[in-house]
């Protein structure tokens, strides 16, 4: 009887998961709609010599989005570096640790899914695994989204031409905001002042990018 119950729960979860993803996609459709994105600034990471992706600072209507488009032959390693930076940024005693931990778990799963998608690709000439990470800061709520993007390279820059959401969830405002600041600083090699100067005009309904 217990075994039957467990099987029923597992099957139910599996059945509900895509529905849940679709439901979230529908619920956050507006926040995820990238078609009207205005790319404010972008940079190839970690370097033009060894491009593994691109960090884009985006204005999406009244939202501020930091989108990391990863397109790499060694995606797991790139994500491992992100994981290491994130872990250093949010140590256990820090307030955002729980959010960070949740993010890293989802990131790990998304990476596995990206690898599986890569293994099942129809175009065998496609050598890159892809993943999109969005930190979305809105006036009312903050979101974190992971998706499998379809990318096109345009003059050495990556352009999103479609995406399949994998996971979207609400993050604590402070956590999302702080991560946006850190990603911008790290990717664009900016100091605090320059980062604030860059983000201030884009900040949705807020006056400062500072974390306090």
């Amino acid at each position, binding site marked *: 009887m217990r075994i039957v119950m467990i099987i029923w729960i597992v099957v139910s979860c599996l059945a509900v998961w895509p529905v849940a993803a679709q439901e979230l996609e529908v619920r956050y459709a507006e926040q995820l709609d990238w078609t009207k994105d205005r790319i404010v600034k972008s940079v190839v990471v970690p370097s033009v010599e060894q491009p593994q992706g691109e960090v884009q600072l985006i204005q999406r209507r009244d939202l501020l989005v930091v989108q990391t488009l990863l397109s790499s*032959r*060694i995606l*797991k*390693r790139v994500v*491992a570096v992100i*994981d290491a930076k994130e872990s250093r940024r949010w140590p256990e005693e820090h307030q955002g640790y729980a959010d960070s931990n949740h993010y890293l778990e989802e990131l*790990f799963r998304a990476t596995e899914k990206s690898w599986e998608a*890569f293994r099942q690709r129809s175009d065998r000439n496609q*050598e890159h695994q892809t993943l999109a990470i969005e930190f979305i800061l809105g006036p009312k709520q903050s979101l974190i989204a992971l998706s499998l993007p379809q990318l096109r390279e345009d003059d050495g820059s990556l352009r999103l031409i479609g995406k399949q959401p994998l996971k979207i969830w609400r993050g604590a405002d402070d956590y999302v905001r702080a991560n946006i600041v850190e990603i911008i600083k790290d990717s664009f090699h900016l100091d605090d002042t320059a980062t604030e100067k860059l983000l201030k005009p884009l900040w949705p309904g807020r006056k400062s990018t500072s974390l306090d």
Partner: protein
Amino acid sequence: MSTLAKKYLHWLLDRGRYPVLACILLITAALTLFAINVPVEQDTRSMSARQPEQFADHERFLNLFGNDEDLLLSVTHPQLLSPTGLSLLTEVTRRLTNLAGVQRVLSLSNARQLVTGRYGAEDRPLLPQPDDTDFAITSQAALRANPEYEGLLISADHKTAGLVVTLQDQRSKPTQRRRLIVEVRELMASLANRAEFHLTGVGVQQSDVAGYIQRDQQVILPLVAVVLMVMLAVIFRSVSGILLPLLTTSISLIWTMGLYALCGFELNTITSLLSPVVMVLAVSNSIHLYNGWLHLDGADDDRIALLVDKVDVLLIPCLFTALTTALGLISLTISSVPAVRQFGLFAAVGVIISFLVSLTLVPVALSYLPLPGRRYREGLGLLRWTLQTIANLTVQHPRAIILVAMLLLGVSVAGLPKLQNNTALIAFLHTDAPLAIDTRYIDEHLSGVNALEFMVEKRDGQPLAGSVDYAKLDAFEALARHQQPVANVFSILNLLRRLHRAESDAGSPSLPTNDDELRYELDLLSMAEDQHMQSRFLTSDLQTARVSVWLHDVGSHSAAVVTDNLLKQGRILFGPDYWLTPTGSFYQMNLDSNRLVVDMVKSFSLSIGLVLLSILILLRSLRLTVLAMIPNVIPILWAVGLMGFCGIDLSTGTAMIGAVVIGLAVDDTIHYLVHYRRIYAGVASEAVIATTTQTGRALMIASLVLAVGFWAGCFSSFKPTIYFSLLVGGTLIGALICDLLVLPACLILNCPTRKEAR
């Protein structure tokens, strides 16, 4: 010819004496400046044949994968896998790394392992920190998990550690490498109280060989001079009899070595023989001239005229003996090994110089001396009796002599199949030489000392990026591991297997099973921060893979068998779409060694042809020319057969024996036959007895001096030089015996007036 020569000799011994002496003095002074500074080759490049195709492969290999001449250092410590042992290894590694010319040092102290992490393989130090409480247990576990380090960085009993010292590419700076090796040895000496150290590697071998060459020059050359002096003193028992031949020898040596240095050549293991060989060869004409002068009989006022007559008589045989010796040596210039070519050319130059100097200096010097007394003319009583006995024997028992010679020949021929090509640099050294001891130690405790290198490429130029490519490499590795003297095999697969184990969290090292995994892992390797290991075995464009097959210390004979097997089976295994190219310094040495037989046969055939032609021109008799070859070919076959029976391998040194000896041995025959023809008056036995007793003395003296002079080479640091010296000296004695027994016996048996004489 004779009139012209006499005119010249009269001028030389009259008005020409001072200008000629002044000329010789000036040239000698000028060439001395070069001769005393002959550089010594610091590597063994002149020992390599440099066949264009193989040379290009080796150059390409070096350009793709860097220096293949790593140094191997072993450290033996009773508690190697303890904090004490590790701190010693760390110190040695650090100090080695700080030496100029060292690119990298790989040891247990800095070796890494790949472990499974959240996102795949993670790089970690192989051994724990010395303060780890479970140091010994953790270390043992790490070594068990990474078995590929056994044999390379640690011995099976875990008591000897290996340090692989990769050198910067200093192909053009051998002196810097030599200095580095000295520094490494100083480092070893400074830590000798803490552990046992041994050092080897191609670079060490080359450097030490250069040192041994210098040592041999300092030891053998004075030894040859002393030997010649003693021999001359015993034979001639006069100051002039010692000084004159030594003076001509010294001048010939200075001129030859001066010209050698002037031409920009350096001394190598073969041309290190040049000085003693030229010294020995140069003495021969002086002995004949001085011995001829000793036999002058007349008034002292007529001494110039008598001297001119004597020199005129000896001029043609001396010219032809010098010519045949030089031709025998010249035949070595068709060898594919540059060192042998240089030796052949300059030894021939030395012989011609010695002829010119002897024929000039000896008569000029003798012209100042009063004629010798009767005592000198008669010589030693024992020698006279011996020659008379030999002469009687040849006349009375010619058939028996021929029969004995043929029987010995038959026995020698049976030894020929036992002869084998084998060049082994370490085996060339004395067993107690430090390099030989070190190499044997490292060979016994770690993974061999010589590497056969293979390059694997696709014929269509595409990268090696498919799992099928690596499956073939894996099969080739397995094939290589099963060959007998193979100690270990290294390739990119060692790294790839460990990476895949860590990526897939598998229990044991294995290769990726599909193209996506393989490609991903190759990408990981190509993007790793430390590119040292992968760049040693796979080019960044993935087009060329290197497989290093490490062999125990074996000679070129065994290595050639392994190479042939691997090439044959490897080419079948890889199929027609791949190139499998053997290369590397060790492979080059093997190729050169295996060309020796062909080279030797070519040189020997050419020298016999040239010598035959010279004798034919001199004697103008086909019958005598054929007879002249019999006493010369027989001792050479005896020597080669003896090599087979004694297990002396055919190597760069010993392969030269035939060509060198034929030109030398025939000298006695020429002197004998020229004298025989001059006094032959229809009765062979009378001519034989007269020739043996009259010329036998000079022949015996010259041959003995040559043989003993060559035997001084037995004090060399290299076994091939010792064998060369022993065998050349022995063959010359054999040739003398044949000249005094077999040749007269042949003349008796083949003389048309034989019945009449009886």
